[in-house]
């Protein structure tokens, strides 16, 4: 198409591109109007209609390049008039591409002091718990403090994004901290770095390590912190909160600090000149875990309990089921009074208060005293032939069926024959 044509066709392809690029629904009539007006002048010096252009600008709501608009209609070399007009309003490909989100990396050179964070010691990378610990460390960090994370997993980017300024590389600290090598290594790193704070996750092994290190370095200690702030750290205790100023060594429970994902730090690997620690003679010989029958664990410590009430007659089938599922056996007062199960299996106000994660109640009606015993259980599934038994209200899931028959059905599904009562 030449520019000498009085009426030119609208290049629909260009129109389409314009619409796509500008991201809004372009008014095809408006575009056409511009093109026609420019073409109408028919001269080599086209004048553009300011009102139309203003209208277009308002419609699209974007600040156009005034240079481009002024020269709209001016034919480009080898281009078409209306195409140029449309194209002048089109953003280029580069403009349309989504902008890269670059976060500024915050650097610390020559830190005055350190905060040492011990991670969960997995090799996969920073976990949510690690991010929380680093966020808590960030709350405690003043200017000039660098946060060093002790981990076997070396990835500067990942740890920098998680909130660490430095990485201290260790081989994986063992789960139990019983190996003298692990906590001695931690103490050695602490001696070199002299951190202002040492943060650990709150687990039995880490609490044990924190206690040993606090005793060895004569530091203040705060275990199982639920809340942490710049000037206070607190944990729940009975019916209140125990609080203190942030101590040198702290163990943190999950959910004490929320990580700030908008900030990014360096995560540089730090060379800590630690004297190599030889394997020390362990003072206590560890013969490993004792094989205990899960079915008869102390109820106060059990995490998965299968309990029976008066609705179940076949107790040996239940024992078989508990064995197969790896559950601890519990019973109500009625069953213990009958002698079907020993008294230490009784769950309830006068038996044991249980704090299991999973509690399967088979044929239990749910007397008040029994419900008192299972108040703190997280997930409760109740099986009872009576849909209106009190326990069905308390339960998370209630199955209305005969408990004995259900036990047989479960055993047959697991590929076992039910033994006779």
């Amino acid at each position, binding site marked *: 198409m030449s520019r000498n044509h009085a009426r030119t066709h609208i290049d629909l392809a260009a129109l389409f591109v314009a619409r796509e690029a500008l991201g809004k629904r372009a008014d095809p009539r408006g575009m056409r109007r511009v093109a026609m007006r420019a073409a109408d002048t028919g001269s080599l010096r086209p004048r553009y209609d300011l009102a139309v252009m203003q209208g277009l600008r308002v419609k699209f709501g974007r600040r156009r390049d005034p240079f481009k608009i002024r020269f709209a209609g001016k034919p480009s070399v080898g281009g078409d008039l209306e195409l140029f007009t449309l194209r002048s309003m089109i953003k280029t490909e580069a403009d349309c591409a989504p902008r890269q989100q670059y976060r500024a990396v915050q650097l610390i050179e020559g830190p005055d002091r350190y905060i040492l964070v011990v991670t969960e010691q997995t090799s996969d990378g920073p976990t*949510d718990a690690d991010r*929380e610990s680093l966020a808590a460390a960030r709350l405690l960090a003043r200017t000039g403090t660098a946060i060093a994370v002790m981990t076997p997993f070396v990835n500067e980017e990942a740890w920098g994004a998680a909130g660490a300024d430095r990485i201290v590389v260790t081989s994986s600290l063992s789960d139990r901290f019983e190996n003298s090598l692990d906590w001695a290594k931690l103490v050695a790193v602490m001696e070199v770095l002299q951190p202002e704070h040492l943060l650990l996750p709150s687990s*039995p092994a880490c609490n*044990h390590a924190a*206690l*040993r290190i*606090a*005793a*060895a370095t004569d530091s*203040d*200690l705060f*275990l199982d912190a639920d*809340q942490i702030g710049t000037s206070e750290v607190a944990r*729940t*205790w*009975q019916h*209140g*909160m*125990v*609080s*203190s100023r942030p101590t040198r060594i702290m163990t943190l429970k*999950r*959910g004490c600090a*929320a*990580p700030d994902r908008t900030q990014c730090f360096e995560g540089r690997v730090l060379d800590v000149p630690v004297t190599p620690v030889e394997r020390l003679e362990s*003072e*206590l*010989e*560890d*013969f*490993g*875990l*004792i094989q205990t029958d899960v079915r008869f664990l*102390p109820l*106060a*410590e*059990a*995490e998965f309990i299968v309990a029976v009430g008066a609705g179940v007659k076949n107790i040996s089938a239940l024992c078989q089921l508990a064995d197969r*599922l*790896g*559950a*601890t056996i519990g019973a109500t007062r009625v069953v213990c009074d009958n002698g079907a199960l020993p008294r230490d299996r009784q769950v309830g106000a006068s038996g044991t208060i249980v704090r299991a994660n*999973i509690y399967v109640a088979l044929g239990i009606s749910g007397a008040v005293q029994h419900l008192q015993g299972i108040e703190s259980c*997280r997930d409760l*599934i109740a*099986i009872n032939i009576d849909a209106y038994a009190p326990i069905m209200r308390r*339960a*998370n*899931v*209630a*199955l*209305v*069926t005969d408990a004995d*028959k*259900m036990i*047989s*059905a*479960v055993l047959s*599904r*697991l590929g076992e024959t039910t033994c006779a009562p």
Partner: protein
Amino acid sequence: MRALRLAVLISGARHPLTQRPQRSDRDARALELALRQDHQEMTVIHAGSASEPFLPLYLGMGVPFIEVVPCPDTHDPFDALLFRLAALQPDIILCGALGSKPSSQGLLPYRLAHHLNLPIAEQIAEIAASDNGIDLIQAEQGGRRRRLRTSRSLIVTVGSAGPPPRLSAFAKRRDGHVVTLTQPVETRAFKQSIDFRPGKRPSSAARLQWTARPEDRLAAVTGAGSRRDTTVKATTPDEAAAFLLDWLAERGLRS
């Protein structure tokens, strides 16, 4: 079977509701564990004052005498206990894993272990002395038990997995007596100040802000708890069995 020289550290507690003085549960379990051993010599030590109301309760467990090392209430009992234990040099020192005050975190046994240069075994459920050494059974979370052995002196910490303490009997209480150490011991005030303020626990909604699943956050805010998810009116035991096994599998417990 060699007869052991034992030392037991005791402290008092208050009933959470009535504030009545009573034995500390863990310390009483530690004392029970010690009483069950074949001991050549057993010393029960308390750092504090001899007029404490809970001391007769410990005497009622069958203890002939309790040694009291004088220590003011606001001072750290660590120095007093260290002084006495360094002089005594027992084979096993037993104590509770945690004290009864809000500020107790179980640091005292670890500090004693460090300063006396003894290994520490925490959360012990049973002790058996043999010719090979001392066998210990350690209680872990979830009801697991671990066997340990040592041939040297150590500190043993007893938690709620220890043996249930025997009842306190009046006659035995009358027969026992409390002995105060006459030698003055230098004690220092607590280094760290931990305050306790009674009040509401922080709402779990605040804690679940960014990590929890949407249903957990909603439950925390509405206070509904994780109650009724579903009610399944299962007509047949088979359907119920299938549902139960799936439910357990969801929670990672299926065998």
